[in-house]
């Protein structure tokens, strides 16, 4: 019995963990096994995951070591095993920054990305784009354009996101794919639309008029992806915040690119208003719209800004918490005084009583921001905030205490 116990204990200690105490030199030697034919997929997957594990743990590979492993993995392209192939792609991506002559796999990856196997294609595109530099990009341009409009959503998304990454290093080239990306915006797949919008808006940052047109297209249509809605809301909010003298400064800082000209306000307004009163299905998209709208309010002194505020307030009644929060956050953070903060505050107040810590934190954090500007508006939430002082989540509790200290009145000391 005692020996059984000991065995059990030992087993627990090592946890049957095959990745414990891995030695880099031994693993690198094992990588030589890749040269053997025929390829044994399972064994190779195991060795590849050991290499990836080492890299993930922060183990340093010298250029030579990395290059050797890289070249060994290229041998694995002869196997058709899907899992093995996917692990090879991962390895290529991880080693691409360390190894030399990585462009050697370009043709293998190009073959995979244009091949018939749908399980390879998205991952192959992403791996290919991670090793391609701007000079090589022209060679794969045609395939990228095709992939962006591919009917398989995974392929399309992979190509769009890769293009977004590439646009920072080769903006001129990627700009030529804008038509394809715009076509992808019509996709039925929520993630594809979201990625396409992000890319297109990113590419058009210098062409403000078309950005406005681009975003306006979504108003009045039902956007399925919540992420996309969030993005659209953020654009809307950004436009609003654009009263800085140098809108481009804001934009670059904000990273995305909906550079909308101040003079183009009319089209921006049209763009955002198209969504008002329509049922936008995607909460993410609504969030983005809210962000846009909030931005518009900041820049616009005319009556139209009221419509944006109305829209944001309308979003407070959405069924998705994500959207409600986005709207309440936007209202509270508007620089322009809003007629009535009460609905937003009461939503945040409700959040403070939620069983989800994320919601409580979101609520408390936003109320804390508001305290600095409008202490009186937060007064109604004093009791809710007091309840949060003993919150099991310390971040929430700390926020509640700070907020209360800032708003503190004599009357609350007793309690």
């Amino acid at each position, binding site marked *: 019995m005692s020996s059984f116990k000991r065995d059990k204990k030992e087993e627990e200690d090592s946890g*049957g*963990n*095959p*990745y414990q105490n891995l030695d880099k030199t031994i693993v690198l030697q094992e990588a030589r096994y890749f040269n053997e034919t025929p390829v044994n*997929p399972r064994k190779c*997957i*195991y060795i590849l*995951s050991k290499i*990836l594990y080492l890299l993930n743990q922060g183990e340093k590979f010298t250029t030579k070591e990395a290059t050797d492993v890289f070249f060994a993995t290229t041998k694995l392209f002869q196997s058709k*095993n*899907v*899992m093995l192939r996917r*692990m090879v792609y*991962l390895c290529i991506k991880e080693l691409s920054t360390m190894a030399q002559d990585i462009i050697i796999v370009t043709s293998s990856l190009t073959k995979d990305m244009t091949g018939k196997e749908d*399980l390879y294609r998205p*991952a192959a595109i*992403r791996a290919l784009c991670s090793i391609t530099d701007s000079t090589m990009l022209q060679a794969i341009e045609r395939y990228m354009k095709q992939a962006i409009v591919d009917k398989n959503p995974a392929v399309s998304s992979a190509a769009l*996101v*890769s293009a*977004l*990454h590439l646009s920072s290093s080769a903006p001129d080239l990627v700009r030529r794919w804008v038509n394809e990306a715009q076509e992808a915006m019509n996709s039925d797949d929520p*993630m594809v639309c*979201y990625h396409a919008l*992000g890319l297109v*808006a*990113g590419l058009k940052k210098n062409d403000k008029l078309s950005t406005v047109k681009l975003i306006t297209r979504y108003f009045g249509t039902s956007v399925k992806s*919540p*992420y996309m809605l*969030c993005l*659209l809301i*953020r654009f809307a909010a*950004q436009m*609003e915040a654009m009263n800085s003298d140098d809108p481009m400064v804001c934009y670059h800082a*904000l*990273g*995305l690119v*909906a550079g909308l000209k101040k003079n183009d306000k009319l089209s921006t307004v049209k763009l955002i208003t198209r969504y008002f009163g329509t049922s936008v299905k995607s909460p*993410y998209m609504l*969030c*983005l719209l809210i962000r*846009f709208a*909030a931005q518009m309010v900041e820049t616009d002194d005319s009556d139209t800004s009221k419509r944006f505020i109305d829209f944001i307030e309308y979003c407070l009644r959405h069924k998705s*918490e994500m959207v409600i*929060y986005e709207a309440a*956050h*936007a209202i509270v*953070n508007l620089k322009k005084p809003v007629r009535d903060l009460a609905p937003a505050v009461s939503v945040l107040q409700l959040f403070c009583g939620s069983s*989800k*810590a*994320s*919601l409580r*934190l*979101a609520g408390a954090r936003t109320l804390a921001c*508001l305290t*600095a500007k409008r202490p009186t508006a937060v007064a109604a939430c004093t009791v809710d905030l007091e309840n949060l002082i003993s919150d*099991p*989540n*310390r*971040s929430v509790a700390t926020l509640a205490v*700070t907020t209360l200290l800032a708003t503190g009145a004599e009357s609350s000391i007793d309690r």
Partner: protein
Amino acid sequence: MVHTTMEGSLFEPTLYIVKGMCILDNEGNRILAKYYDKNILTTTKEQKAFEKNLFNKTHRANAEIIMLDGLTCVYKSNVDLFFYVMGSSHENELILQSVLNALYESVSILLRRNVEKRVIMENLDSVMLAFDEICDGGVILDSDPTSIVGRAALRTEDVPLGEQTVAQVLQSAKEQLKWSLLK
């Protein structure tokens, strides 16, 4: 390092939302971690120090969310594993939460609901692929656990039924029965 301010600001419209994702064990050691922002936590040393700090602050309090070093971190734990998703402190917490759910759910499906260290180590390859499917350089690639798993868990398919051992077949039958009963 990003600074936390009490000052409110509007959310920025960008696809680059996720700053990092990681899975730690019950001692705060890294099982898998990925950081996507080139401007924060650039060295492994900084990352591991951040992870230790994060773990120390979160492993006892089961509180879902924390703000640490200018990052908003949502987290979830099970048995001896801790899952984290990090975003800027100016990010919509609920978007981060949806990414965390995608991560946790897909790992959970991959491990056949046995979300614990021993099992995750046996399936590390699939989990690495899932990481890759959820987030590409900070852009949310997919948030639907079933489609993520569909693309990350390919290993079971390539072992034909005939080549599985009797024990494996029994095991998978048992699992299926268990989960159909628990549903």
